[in-house]
């Protein structure tokens, strides 16, 4: 590639810098605020603080004490890993099959998948199904009911369809069946989209809390997002009780600490996935 013009590069740099700042500034606010203590927050009217004068880890200490959050993080990591793996398998299988033209029943199945993109079953029938299958109060209940997402199937299918047919033809000549072609050709050449869809699923599992609220009564099994929500509500709670603890933390700092805690695992996992969707996979050699 030849070098772009100086003006072009300058413009690009300016645009990118602006974008990065527009994103980083609020995150600076989030982190800064999470480190702000009561006195400073009050002096500041409770608003967000970029650089606290007297940073304190009090908000994190409050949230992480007692072990509930740590346990919930582990629970969520488990749910996310298992859920993502299962979801990816089902999605890739289905997407691959549907990408094969002329498959028996391919069109009706595709339509059936697409319809799920448009309508939503009610909360109560789904609850009753989960109950019927004996999954109430289990970890499965937050994975299985949201196992496959039609959008992801359609995306994966489209990528598989975009692969050069010659590759499959050649493999067929060598006597490969569909199973082998999927593993040997389709999947290795589609790492990027699989990484993306995996990320969608993982983020979905990581952020989910409503299914746990509905299906899991045992608070020890609750995932991180549901537990963290409690810390956000707690700030405003004054119901009933004649006793409350004097909580010396501003709402904003707890809220932001919650945000940071929930974000850390995603930040850690991202680079591992990122490498798959930043470099090209098809080279002229394959195409032949």
């Amino acid at each position, binding site marked *: 590639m*030849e070098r*772009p013009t100086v003006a072009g590069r300058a413009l690009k740099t300016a*645009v990118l810098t602006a974008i*990065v700042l527009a*994103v*980083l500034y*609020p995150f600076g606010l989030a982190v800064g605020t999470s480190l702000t203590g009561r006195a400073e927050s009050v002096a500041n009217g409770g*608003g967000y603080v970029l650089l606290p004068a007297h940073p304190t880890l009090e908000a994190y200490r409050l949230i992480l004490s007692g072990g509930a959050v740590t346990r919930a993080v582990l629970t969520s990591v488990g749910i996310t890993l298992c859920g993502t793996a299962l979801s990816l*398998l089902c999605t890739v*299988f*289905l997407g691959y099959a549907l990408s*094969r*033209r*002329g*498959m*028996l*029943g391919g*069109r009706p199945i595709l*339509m*059936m998948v*697409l319809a*799920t*993109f448009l*309508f*939503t*079953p009610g909360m109560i*029938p789904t609850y*009753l*199904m989960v109950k019927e299958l004996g999954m109430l109060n289990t970890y499965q209940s937050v994975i*299985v009911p949201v*196992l496959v997402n039609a959008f992801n199937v*359609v*995306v994966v299918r*489209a990528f598989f*369809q*975009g*692969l*050069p*047919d010659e590759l499959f*033809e050649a493999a067929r000549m060598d006597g490969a069946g*569909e*199973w082998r072609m999927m593993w040997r050709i389709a999947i290795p050449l589609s790492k*990027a*989209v699989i990484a*993306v869809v995996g*990320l969608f699923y993982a*983020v979905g599992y990581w952020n989910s809390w409503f299914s746990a609220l509905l299906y899991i009564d045992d608070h020890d099994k609750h995932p991180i997002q549901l537990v963290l929500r409690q810390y956000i509500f707690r700030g405003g709670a004054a119901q009933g009780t004649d006793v409350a603890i004097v909580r010396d933390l501003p709402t904003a700092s707890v809220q932001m600490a919650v*945000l940071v805690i929930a*974000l850390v695992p995603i930040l850690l996992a991202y*680079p591992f996935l990122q490498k*798959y*969707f*930043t*470099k*090209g*996979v*098809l*080279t*002229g050699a394959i*195409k032949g």
Partner: protein
Amino acid sequence: MVVSTAAPATEVQVGARPQRRTLRDRLRRDWTLLLLCLPGVLYFVVFFYVPLLGNVIAFKDYAPFLGIDGSPWVGLENFVMLLEEPEFWTAVGNTLQITALQLLLYFPAPIALALLLNSLVGNRVKRLVQTVVYLPHFLSWVVVVAMFQQVIGGAGTITTFLAAHDVTIGNLMADPELFKLMATAQVIWKDTGWGTIIFLAAITAIDVSQYEAAAIDGADWKRRLWHVTLPGIRPVIIMLLILRLGDILSVGFEQMVLQRDAVGAEASEVIDTYIYYHGVINGDWGMSTAAGLMKGLIGAALIYAANKLAHRFGEQGIYR
């Protein structure tokens, strides 16, 4: 996705034999594929289609303790109730305006950013920028709105700063006229980075040799962008566009409710908030289900039409 995008898909059939086969033959040929479909299909039947039968409550006066069978039929009453209120149509109008703005302003943003990122030479900068831009997606709407308010709200940093220098810009966050643009700006800020991911993945699927060939032909970066990259990701763009059309009647519920007081119900009522405030809040399951069904049907019609249109332009669309 790659070179053969323009080639009609029907050209190549599995097994490459166009004549009719018996069901038995096809079963024997496709059993692996059918088996691959099984887990997904089973999932959709058990957790989508069976519970979906419960949506008959759109035609019932449903109460959870009576169950679906026990609740009385009310015919189309739930639909009529929804459609006869003028406020509902205000909500439809707002929804469509906001979706239109989003399609116009938000939809291209991740594509542009993905192309920009892709054009970066330095790999390190590329990764850094990428790692940063997807972050806002993880902020809840409560936080996003609060942050916008902190910067450009009536008591926001910029507003106060300007006011101190005797420049009055008013409260940009409380202007009903500006609201739809503001809502779109918020979506752009929150989700542009996240949206690039799928386009970046599409770009990786472009055969590198095409760039080389283009470079040999003396194409500069603009022409490579125009003749290689964009055509390479076009099918993905079109697919996402069609899927978005299917979802045209849904716009950020949470985002709207949070700003309802600031700009008023007339500017911010969208279909989903209407259903919430006129159905869900009264415990009216039938009406919210009816609304969901209608949205689905309209979405289906739009997907169907958009897909047809895509075919007319020689595109794959999302199905054939």
